[in-house]
Structure formats: structure tokens, C-alpha cells
């Protein structure tokens, strides 16, 4: 695998405030990569530098082997961007907008197919200003993928979605991965990162705290588990680094099932909150 995105020592300040304090990151081609972080951590700034919307102050950045700050239209032909909050094109229909964007790319997908792929077939002839929030985001995604991008940028794609819409959306993203698209997304939702991402980076105060698979972030896989159960005298718990061993011993005290038995590993959210709490 080769690096689709490569960042080393990237910094960015607005006025006096340092937003990115030296970012190093490699994202492999074909990977779904999520950037997690609290508001104001620099997620959007970082992504906008990669998209060519913003200039960094220093450091090296390449996306598909090209520096986005001096990128050409040929480069733009190879990437797709899903914006966080656009509210344009209200008087046009879904099909009209998607068909128009298809003309900008040399390798556009058939508009009707893309509209179907994002689940907007029923709304293909509807004006954009009659769409619900979630449907609008699907249109945003359709416009991001119409040009068969090699890399797709998604900035907080499911904000404001209901749970069902989010699940459908995840399915859509997985489908894109199967086509070989590299996907970089930022999100507030840890379940989303866990569900979709091959790797996540936690960005806090303009620095990357850790890059890992969601199941391994913060040593999550090797951390102890919490075992809870009940017996005649009440509820009990035990923190153990070797839960299997503990359970083996515990089980001999009971004839059959252990009442109310639960073994819990720390969730991604537990780990994440631990990581961002440490900040100043």
C-alpha cells in the first residue's frame, strides 16, 4: 500500500493562536481514516489544508503525491469533497445539480446511479430546498463522489442525522471503500469512528495524541476488564487484567450460571474522554 496522504510538521496559526502545532500523519490508499477531536481542536483546519482550501504556515503536505496548496484542476479531478454546511442551489432539482457537476469531471459516474447510491432516487426530481437535512447531506455526498474520486473528504458527515439515517450512511461509505476510495472523515461520534474507520487519530489542541486502530486506541485491547456479578450477599465487581483467569476461579463458586455476569472492556468513548481530559 502507498500513502494517499502524507503530512509532516504541518503548522497553522490564525493571528496569535496556534491551531496546528506540527502534525505528522500518513494515510494509506484504500483506508478509511477518522480524525477525532473536540471542537476547536483543529480538525477542520487540518482537513481544509488537505483539500487545498487553506494554506499551512510550514511543513510538508502531499495528497495523491501533490502539494494541495499549489494544486491544479487535474488534481481536483481526482478528489471529492463533502462540505460541512452548504445551502446552495435551492431552486434546482437533485438531478439537475448532480448532472451539472458530472460535467466538471473527466471520469464522472452516471448521475442517476450516484443519486440511487446515496438513496435519493425518490427525490431525484425534487427541488433542493424541499429536502430534509439528512437528504441534503446525501446530496452533498452525491456531489462529492460524482467524479469517482480517489480520495473522499467528509467533514462531520452525519451531524444531525437520526440513528437510522446514520446506519444507512455508514453502509454507503463502506460501499465506497469497496470501490477502492480512500476516505478521510472527521467526526464527533465515536461509534461512527469505531464502525467505519480502519484507523483513527485523536487531535487535541492542534496535536495528534495517538494514531491507532479503534480497537487498540489508548491500549484499549490490553487494558483491564471490569467484571460484575451478583450472589446472595449482593452485587460485586472486580477490575482484572486477566479476566479469563479470574472468571475461571469465580465460576467454581457457583453451581450453574453466575447471576448478572458482565465483562466490560473500556469503550472507545471511555478511552477518548480519558485522552482529551488530559489537555490544559
Amino acid at each position: 500500500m502507498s500513502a494517499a496522504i502524507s503530512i509532516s510538521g504541518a503548522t497553522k496559526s490564525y493571528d496569535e493562536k496556534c491551531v496546528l502545532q506540527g502534525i505528522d500523519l500518513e494515510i494509506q490508499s484504500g483506508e478509511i481514516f477518522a480524525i477525532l477531536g473536540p471542537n476547536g481542536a483543529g480538525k477542520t483546519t487540518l482537513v481544509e489544508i488537505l483539500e487545498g482550501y487553506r494554506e499551512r504556515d510550514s511543513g510538508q503536505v502531499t495528497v495523491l503525491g501533490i502539494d494541495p496548496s499549489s494544486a491544479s484542476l487535474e488534481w481536483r479531478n481526482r478528489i471529492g469533497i463533502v462540505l460541512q454546511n452548504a445551502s446552495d442551489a435551492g431552486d434546482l432539482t437533485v438531478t439537475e445539480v448532480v448532472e451539472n457537476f458530472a460535467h466538471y469531471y473527466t471520469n464522472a459516474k452516471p448521475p442517476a446511479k450516484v443519486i440511487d447510491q446515496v438513496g435519493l432516487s425518490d427525490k431525484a426530481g425534487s427541488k433542493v430546498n424541499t429536502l430534509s437535512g439528512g437528504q441534503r447531506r446525501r446530496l452533498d455526498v452525491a456531489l462529492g463522489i460524482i467524479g469517482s474520486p480517489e480520495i473522499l473528504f467528509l467533514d462531520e458527515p452525519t451531524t444531525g442525522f437520526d440513528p437510522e439515517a446514520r446506519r444507512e450512511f455508514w453502509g454507503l461509505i463502506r460501499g465506497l471503500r469497496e470501490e477502492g476510495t480512500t476516505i478521510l472523515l472527521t467526526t464527533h461520534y465515536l461509534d461512527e469512528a469505531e464502525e467505519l474507520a480502519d484507523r483513527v487519530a485523536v487531535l487535541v489542541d492542534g496535536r495528534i495524541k495517538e494514531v491507532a486502530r479503534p480497537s487498540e486506541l489508548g491500549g484499549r485491547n490490553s487494558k483491564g476488564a471490569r467484571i460484575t456479578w451478583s450472589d446472595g450477599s449482593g452485587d460485586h465487581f472486580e477490575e482484572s487484567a486477566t479476566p479469563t483467569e479470574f472468571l475461571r476461579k469465580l465460576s467454581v463458586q457457583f453451581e450453574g450460571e453466575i447471576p448478572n455476569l458482565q465483562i466490560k472492556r473500556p469503550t472507545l468513548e471511555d478511552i477518548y474522554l480519558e485522552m482529551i481530559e488530559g489537555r490544559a
Partner: protein
Amino acid sequence: MSTLVIGLHRGKLELKQFFRQRESVVFTLFFPIMLMFIFGSIFKNSIAPGVTFSQYFIAGMIASGLVNSGFQQLAITIPMERDFGTLKRLRGTPMPPLSYFIGKLVVVAVSITIQVALLMGFGKLFFHLHMPTSSDKWLRLVWLILLGSICSTVLGIAFSAVPKSGRGASAVVSPIVIILQFFSGVFFVFTDLPSWMQQFAALFPLKWLTQGMRSVFLPDTFAVKEATGTWESGRILIILLAWAVAGTVLAIKTFRWSNK
């Protein structure tokens, strides 16, 4: 895909948007007729033998229609498109910026052509206006509309960099347009204006567009009443061409995709 082809696709899309905003379409297309009706009803005198004020005024109305539907419209709506994220989204695609400009030009040219047709039809029916009398004048009308549309479009795009946001744009743009209209002989007989006004107006394309339109709609005998005693068609062509080129360069240099 070439810049021009993408530009024409943009033009098609922008035309759809233009015609779907009903109130704005009605206002844009019928406003010149309204003005024509008002001025035509107030000034019933002739300014030269066989030349009514309305006949003089239609030239100014067409020229200022060009300024309104191009320069004014774009300098106000492009900052709004920045606010809405339209431009940010386009910036993220391989669409050439020039295609976006071409799309705007298509709308301006279509809009002004309809306005001219309406003005001429209305003028002929209600104010007994004379139509251009020779194929020469018709041809001049065509290149004036074309060059005027280009100038108005590119200068509107260039000026759209000035307003900080869509909300304040109209307050910045409208006074400029109105003053320019007064100075350029749209509402009054140009040569009756103070000479400093005439000289100031000569710096901008509207004065030349208006004069060119007069040469289309007024009898050639009226040319002696112009500032230099002739229509100056050649000079008008050169000046408008120069503005078109300069405006395009300016528009490309100053165009902003986002509100910083």
C-alpha cells in the same frame, strides 16, 4: 472537457435558477419598461425635430439594463453565493473559474436580450418609437449588447470582491450604479450635463454604451448634437473592447471564493 463547454452547462443551470426566482425575474425584466413609462409620461416634449424624449431615453434604458442585470446583479449575488457555500463547493471541483464567468455571462446576455425585445416592443406600441433604420444599425445593436454584456459581467465579478458579505452588498453597489447612470446620460440628455460630469462619465463604459445605443435608435442627423459632433462608433468599439479585456483580467485577479 473544455472551459467553454463547462461554461455553457453552467449557463444552462444558472438560467434555470434565474427563471425560477419569479419575483426577481419580473422585476429585472419589467423594471426598464416601468421607468420608460414613467419618464415617457413626464417628458412629452421633443428634444430635436422628430426625436421625442422617449426615443432618446430607450438608448439609456437599454444601456442601464446592461449595467443592472450584469454589474449590479453580480456584484450583489456573488457575495451571497460566497455566504451560501456555492463558491466554496465549486472551488473544490475541477471546474475552471472561467467557466463560472461564462455561466454568468450567459444569464446576463439572455436577460438583456429579453429586456431589449420588451423595451422595443413596448416602445413601438405605446410611445411610437422608431426602430433601427438600417441593417448597419441592427448589427451595431448586436455587438453593443454582446460587448456590453461582457463588460458588465466581468466588471460585476471583479466588483464582487469588494462587499464583505451578501447582506451589505446592495448598499455598496446600488449608489455607484445610480450615480453612474446620472453621469452617463441615461436619465437626461448627456450634452446638457456639466462638462466635468461628462468627462468623469467618459472614464466608464456606461457612457459609451449609452452613446452607442443612441446611434442605433436616433436618426443620424442627431449625431451633430453629440459631444464631438459624431457617433464615434469606432472609438466606442475600441473602448468597450479595452474594458472587456481589462475587466476580465481584473475579475480573474480579484475573484474570491470565500469570505475570509
